[in-house]
C-alpha cells in the first residue's frame, strides 16, 4: 500500500492530543469517585491519608518532574539533530521511570506488610471509609503505575528508533508524541500526589 509518503505532522499531533483526552477521562472516573467518597467520609480519608508516606511521595514527584524535563529536552535535542544527546536524555527519562516504580514498590509493599490492601481482613474490620480510601489509592496509583510502565516502554522503543535513525530532525513526531504521553503520565501524578498525600 502506498500510504507511506503521506506525512501530516499537525494531524499526528492532533490524534495524540485526542488520545490524551481519553486518558484524562479514564483517570477522571477515579477522581470522580475520590470526590464523592471524600465528601462522604472526610474523617476516614484524613486518617487514611496520614498513613501514606509523604516523603516517598514527594521524592517520586521530583523524580517524575525530572523525567518530564528530560523528555522535553530530548525533543529539543532531536530538533537540533543531536541524536546521541536525545538517546541519553531518553535513557535518563526511562531511568527515572524505573526509580519511580521501585519507590512505588517499596511504598506498596510496606503498606501490604501492615495488612493494608484491598479485601484485607484489617480493612474489612475497620471503618468502611478507610477501606474505600485505600481501594481508591491502590487502584489509582496502580493504574497510574501501569501507565508509567507503558510510557517507559514507549520511550525505550522510540530511543531505539532514534538510534536506527528512523526518528530524526526531519521526522520526530513519534518522539514528540511519546514525550506528550509521558507528560500526561507526569501530569496525572501531579494531581494524585496532593489529593492523596498532601491535602488530607
Amino acid at each position: 500500500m502506498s500510504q507511506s509518503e503521506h506525512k501530516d505532522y499537525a494531524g499526528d499531533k492532533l490524534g495524540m492530543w485526542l488520545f490524551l483526552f481519553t486518558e484524562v477521562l479514564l483517570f477522571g472516573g477515579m477522581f470522580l469517585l475520590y470526590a464523592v467518597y471524600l465528601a462522604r467520609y472526610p474523617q476516614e480519608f484524613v486518617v487514611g491519608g496520614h498513613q501514606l508516606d509523604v516523603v516517598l511521595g514527594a521524592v517520586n514527584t521530583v523524580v517524575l518532574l525530572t523525567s518530564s524535563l528530560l523528555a522535553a529536552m530530548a525533543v529539543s535535542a532531536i530538533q537540533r539533530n543531536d541524536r546521541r544527546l536525545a538517546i541519553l536524555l531518553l535513557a535518563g527519562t526511562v531511568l527515572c521511570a524505573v526509580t519511580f516504580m521501585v519507590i512505588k514498590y517499596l511504598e506498596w509493599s510496606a503498606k501490604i506488610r501492615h495488612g493494608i490492601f484491598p479485601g484485607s481482613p484489617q480493612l474489612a474490620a475497620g471503618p468502611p471509609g478507610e477501606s474505600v480510601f485505600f481501594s481508591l489509592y491502590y487502584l489509582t496509583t496502580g493504574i497510574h503505575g501501569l501507565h508509567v510502565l507503558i510510557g517507559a516502554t514507549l520511550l525505550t522503543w522510540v530511543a531505539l528508533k532514534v538510534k536506527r535513525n528512523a526518528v530524526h530532525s526531519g521526522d520526530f513526531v513519534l518522539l514528540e508524541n511519546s514525550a506528550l504521553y509521558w507528560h500526561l503520565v507526569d501530569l496525572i501524578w501531579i494531581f494524585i500526589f496532593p489529593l492523596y498525600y498532601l491535602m488530607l
Partner: protein
Amino acid sequence: MSLYEHPQPAAEGGFWSDTGKSGIASWIFSTDHKRIGLLYFYSVLAFFLIGVLLGLLLRLELMAPGHTIMGAQTYNAIFTVHGVVMIFLFIIPGFPGAFGNLVMPIQIGARDVSFPRLNLFSWWLYIIGAAIILVSLFTGGGPPDTGWTFYVPFSARTGTNVSLAVFGVFIIGFSSILTGVNFVTTIHRLRAEGMTWGRLPLFVWSLYATAWVQILATPILGITLVLIMAERLLGTGLFDPALGGDPIMFQHLFWIYSHPAVYIMILPAMGVISDIIPVFSRKPIFGYKMIAFSSLAIAAAGSLVWGHHMFTSGMSDTAILVFSFLTFVVAIPSAIKVFNWVSTLYKGSISLEAPMLFALSFLLLFSIGGLSGLILGAAATDIHVHDTHFVVGHFHYVILGGSGFAFFAAMHYWLPKFYGRRYAEKPAIVAWALMFVGFNILYFTMQVLGMQGMPRRYYDYLPEFATLNLVSTIGSWIMVAGLVLLMVNLFRGLLWGPPFTGNPWGGATLEWSIPTPPPTENFEEEPLVTHGPYDFKGTGIP
C-alpha cells in the same frame, strides 16, 4: 461536472483487484479503508445475525407463560449475551466501522483515513475483544447473566464468567476510541480542497459528532469495567456497601458512558438518513446547517442526561428533576432533524426505492421511539413503566427501528457502489414490507405490555399477558422472514446481480463521482470540490 454524467466504467473491479494482491492476508492486514470497512461490515453483520438468533429464542421463550423452551438461568444468560452482542459487537462499531470506513474518506475527497494502520489495529482489537467475549460464554462459570448493564452488586457476586466478558468489552471500547480519534483527525486534516465544513455531507457531520462521543465517553466505560474486574478479582469494595462503597456510583459511571453510547448508535444513522432522503426526493436537503448543528447539539446535550436511567435508584429529587429536564432538551435537536427531513420530502419528486423505504420507515419508527422516550424521561411516568417491557419496546424502536433500519438503508444504498452489482428491487421491497410490519407487531405490543405492567428480564409472566406476548412473538417471525429475504436478495445481487455503474441513485456526494467499484486510490487526482453535497443542479444531475 461531466464526471457525474459520464462516469468511468468499472476499472477491473477497482479496489478488489487493482493492488494485484489477493488471499486472506491482503484483507486482514490491509490498511485500505474500503477493505477495513468491509471487514468491519461482515464482522458486525455476523454478530448481528447471532444477536437476532438469540433474540428469537427470547421471544420463543416468552411465547407462552411458564417454562416454554428454556429455564430461568438460560434465559438470563441469553438476554445478557443478546444485549452485549447487539450493543458492543454490532451497533456501536457498526456505523463508524463499516460505513464510516467505507464511505467517509471518499465523501471528504481523501485517499484514506489519517491513520490507516491504527484503523486496521482498531479492527483487530474489535476481533480480539469479540473473541474474548465468545470465550467467556463457554468457560469459567458460563455466560454472564447480569444483563448488558453489568449492574453491581449482582455482577460483583454472580458465579458466571463476568470478568472475562467485561474484559472483552474493555478491549472493544479501546477499539472504538481509536476509531473516534482517527475519524476526528481525518475530518479535520484530510478534507480535499474546496471541501469546506459547510460542504461536508451530513453523514460525515454525524460521524464527526459520533467520533467525539466515542472519544469523550468511552474512557469512562473503560474505567467502570476495570472497577468491576477489580471488584470481582481484588475485592476492592468500591461498590459494596459493606465496605463503604456505593452501588449507585457504579450506575452513575456506567451511564455516563452508556447513555452517550446510544448516540454513538443513532447519530450516524441520522447521517445516513440525511444523505439518502435528499437523493431520493430529488431535492437539496432542507436546513443543512441545522441538521449538522443538531448532531453536535445531540452529542453535547446527550452527555448530560445519564441520570434518567436512575430515577428509581434512589437519587435526590433535585437530581431527578435536572436530569428529566435535560432529557427533554435532547428531544429538541432530535425533533429539528425530523422536521428538516420531512421538509426535505415536501414537494420533492420522491422515488420509493429500497433505500428510501428504509429511510422513510426510520422517520416513523424513530419518532415513535423518541416520543416513547419522553414518557421515560418524565420522572412521574417513568416510575410507572421503569424496568418494564415498555423500555424494551422503546429502546428497540430507537435502536432497531432507527439505527437498524438506517443500517439496512445504508446496505442497499452504498454496498452496490463497492461491489459494482446490484440487488433485485422487488424482493427488496417485499423484504422491507415484511420487516416493517413484523417490527411493529413485535415491539408495539411490548410497549403495551409494559404499560400494563409486565416487567422486563423475567422468563415467565402472569397469564393475563399471554395473548399480547404471543402476538409479539409472531411479529418476530414476520420480521425475521423479511430479514432473511433481505439478506438473500442483497447478497445474491451483490455477487451475481446486474451491473451497477455510474450514479444510478443520482447522488451529489463525492463517492458517486468516482468509478464503481472505487479504485484503491479513490481519486486519480485530488478532487477540487466546487459544490455542496446536495447541490444536484450544480453537479449536473437531472
